[in-house]
């Protein structure tokens, strides 16, 4: 277990470096640069261009820029936003905290709804309840997320005026965006869980448990759920990983200051330090979440022997 953890940790660094390099090349390959964007319809004075290029190191060869960037990151210097001078690390941490709150809340909502519905569905397959749940699940992720977002804003913020339409600040502000994201992801969780449970339902040990007269709740929770959990953990982990990198559309609709919209905006402004800092941070987090999910397998499925697993 410990050795496995170390091994994965060891793989972290080269993966991050390669990823960062690819992003570096891609973003630099985009036409336009931060200085041009800052000056809008105008041409920046050449002296400023020179001074800023020096400040940002944009006048060096690409590979040198990359190396210098990595060196500075290793020294804990994440740089400053080109246009507005805000420190990238502080900005990223603040935005990430917002994203984390949103991700946890929405995954909790999606998991609760998804698993409950899957249980009902799998308990009596092809019943009316099952059919309705299956339609609802498909509908939930077929309808685009911005539609859900705008509808919730219209109902709860504009007409009923119960909740704020967005921004960050306390639980009240979190509800609408979290529910929106929860709604679009519960369907996926419900479908995967239902399929996984149905498969387990037909296993001999479930039939045997029922034959022994165990009560249905016990059968469902201890026998079915327990054994169906691996794919469920996988899908929830994946969903969580995706949300960690920010939910740009939801953040935009609710003006929620998450990390996704931060990266998106800074790509448009060619604010390189913020783009790289944001992506680097997200990459670290997503890799950590994946590792945690792998470790979680160990606990939910005793058959998994992490030490011997090849990555």
């Amino acid at each position, binding site marked *: 277990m410990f050795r496995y953890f170390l091994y994965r940790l060891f793989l972290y660094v080269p993966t991050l470096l390669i990823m960062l390099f690819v992003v570096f090349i891609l973003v630099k390959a*985009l*036409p*336009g*640069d931060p200085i*041009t*964007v*800052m*000056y*809008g*319809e*105008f*041409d*920046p*004075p050449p*002296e*400023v261009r020179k*001074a*800023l290029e020096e*400040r940002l190191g944009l006048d060096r060869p690409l590979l040198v820029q990359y190396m210098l960037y990595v060196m500075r990151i290793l020294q804990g210097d994440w740089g*400053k*936003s080109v*246009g*507005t*001078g*805000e420190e990238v690390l502080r*900005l990223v941490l*603040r935005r990430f905290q917002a994203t984390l709150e949103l991700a946890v809340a929405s995954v909790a909502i999606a998991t609760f709804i998804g698993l409950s519905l899957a249980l009902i569905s799998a308990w009596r397959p092809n019943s009316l309840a099952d*059919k309705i749940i299956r*339609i609802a699940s498909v*509908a939930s992720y077929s309808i685009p997320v911005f539609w859900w977002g*705008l*509808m919730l*804003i*219209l*109902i709860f*913020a*504009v*007409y009923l*005026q119960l909740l*704020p*339409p*967005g*921004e*960050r600040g306390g639980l009240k502000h979190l509800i609408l965006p979290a529910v929106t994201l929860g709604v679009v992801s519960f369907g996926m969780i419900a479908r995967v869980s239902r399929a996984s449970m149905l498969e387990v339902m037909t296993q001999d040990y479930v039939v045997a448990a029922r034959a022994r007269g165990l009560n249905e709740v016990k059968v469902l929770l201890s026998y079915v759920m327990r054994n169906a959990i691996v794919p469920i953990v996988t899908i929830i982990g994946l969903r969580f990983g995706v949300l960690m990198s920010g939910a740009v559309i939801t953040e*935009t*609709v*609710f*003006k929620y*200051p998450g990390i996704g*919209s*931060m990266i998106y*905006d800074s790509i*448009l*402004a*060619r604010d390189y330090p*913020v783009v790289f800092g944001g992506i680097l941070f997200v990459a670290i987090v997503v890799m950590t979440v994946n590792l945690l999910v792998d470790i979680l397998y160990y606990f939910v499925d005793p058959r998994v022997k992490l030490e011997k697993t090849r990555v």
Partner: protein
Amino acid sequence: MKSSRLTYIALVLVAVVIIGMVGYFYFLRAPEAPPKVETPLKETPVTFKEIDVLKISQRADLSTIDVQVATDAPTLSVFGHVYETLFRVKFDETGTPTFVPHLVESYTKINDTLWEFRLKSGVKFHDGKPLTAHDVKASFERGPQVGSLPRILLGFIKEVQVVDNLTFRLVLKYPFGPMIAHLSHPSTAIIPAWVAERFPNAPIDSTAYIIGTGPYRFVEYKKGERTVLEVFADYWGRKPTVKRIEWVPIPDDSTRVSFLEAGTVDIVTHVPPQFVNLLKDKGFQVVQIPSVRVIYIGINVERIPDARVRQALNLAVDKEAIVKHILEGAGSVASAPIHPSVFGYSKQTPYQYDAAKAREAIRAAGWEGRELVFITPQGRYLKDREIAEAVKAYLEAVGLRVKVEVMEWAAYISRVTTQKDFDLFLLGWSTVTLDADYGLYSLFRSGAPFNRMQYSNAEVDRLLDAARAESDLAKRAQLYAEAQKLIWQDAPWIFLHYEDIIVAFKPKLVDIEIQPIERWILTYAMVREESR
């Protein structure tokens, strides 16, 4: 099996239809206008209350924290509350601008190229230091080094001479008619000398250096989230009635409007035209005024040197239809390269839409079937992409082929600026000084920085140079009128329209100043209350 599948499909369809109908009828349809309440005969006393926090949402966040670097209206609107200029512009009810001394107490003309100014005494910067002539000198010397706008606006100054602490002289390179207008633009605002000297040729790198003499101090900035200004206790002028202003950037149009509807913000700017009636019906105040921004399609004159072809392009496009149907009335067809409220404006005969005539001219010039590359940004100006698509259709209808390339702003602006591999490009230009020099010289003078059409006409150059150096207003106006006539005939643009500004705010807010140069001044806003 088959029937159950059919049931499914039917169920889903019914659900979709129901959801759609409920959504449409219940939420999107504007509610009926509330019944008009008869005003009671007894007069209710009206009081005006000061405001603790005023929240305004613009379309964009600060693009830079350096006032001398900033070029965009949203950023300059924020800084307009923090920094002050030597003169300032005021508009009367008809929208006619006048320029009045602001930080300046008095000024005298010594000769055509030498002016003496005396600053008001007792003006303080937010760091407590008094405003002196040295700050003016440092600001005017640094501005052109770091900013494109100050470079244009202050380019007429040869030297700033400090006479004493409150007195300075401007030595001009040439007599300069629009001087006072230029000294009213926020890009010529006065910053402390020590900040100017610390960052002589690069933008400031921290919000700690945002120090002005304006009614508000800059207290907080969170990128993409908000900018907070608080009233400056030692302000020299009339005491502001708003204690704190929060600027919340919301790029998404629907979200911005819903923030106003939900009461989260008090004012929203850049309201899309389709929301105007909805907001009015709900009792919000909506102000729609013409702005000084003209939207045009620049024609690469090097590639299309034949003026007859360029005129034909103008004839081929139905500008009125674009304003009416694409902008939904939020604009007016351009009648000159500059807006009517700009000094020096001279009305031209519009190119009346005439597809047959345009087609004939294109054929006669041998341009039939030629392909034009038309580049356009998306989301920068009101309905820019839709306008480009419409123009493409109009031009194809008269026998040309048009390839529209929609580009993201950063890529677009560097292509327009550095490369010349296009035939047509869509851009906007605001004559923010309200003087024709700014709207014509930088755009149509040969070799001028924003003459991206590469247009050159020796007579136009002569007129623009002469107008710039002329101090007699009537003569200047005459010179600009002649220049505009020539530019209009040469048609280096497809002249499109002037954009409207639409701002909406809460029912009881009063005294919000909305200027046609896309700036809003909130310093003296109040809440109107009817007490009994």
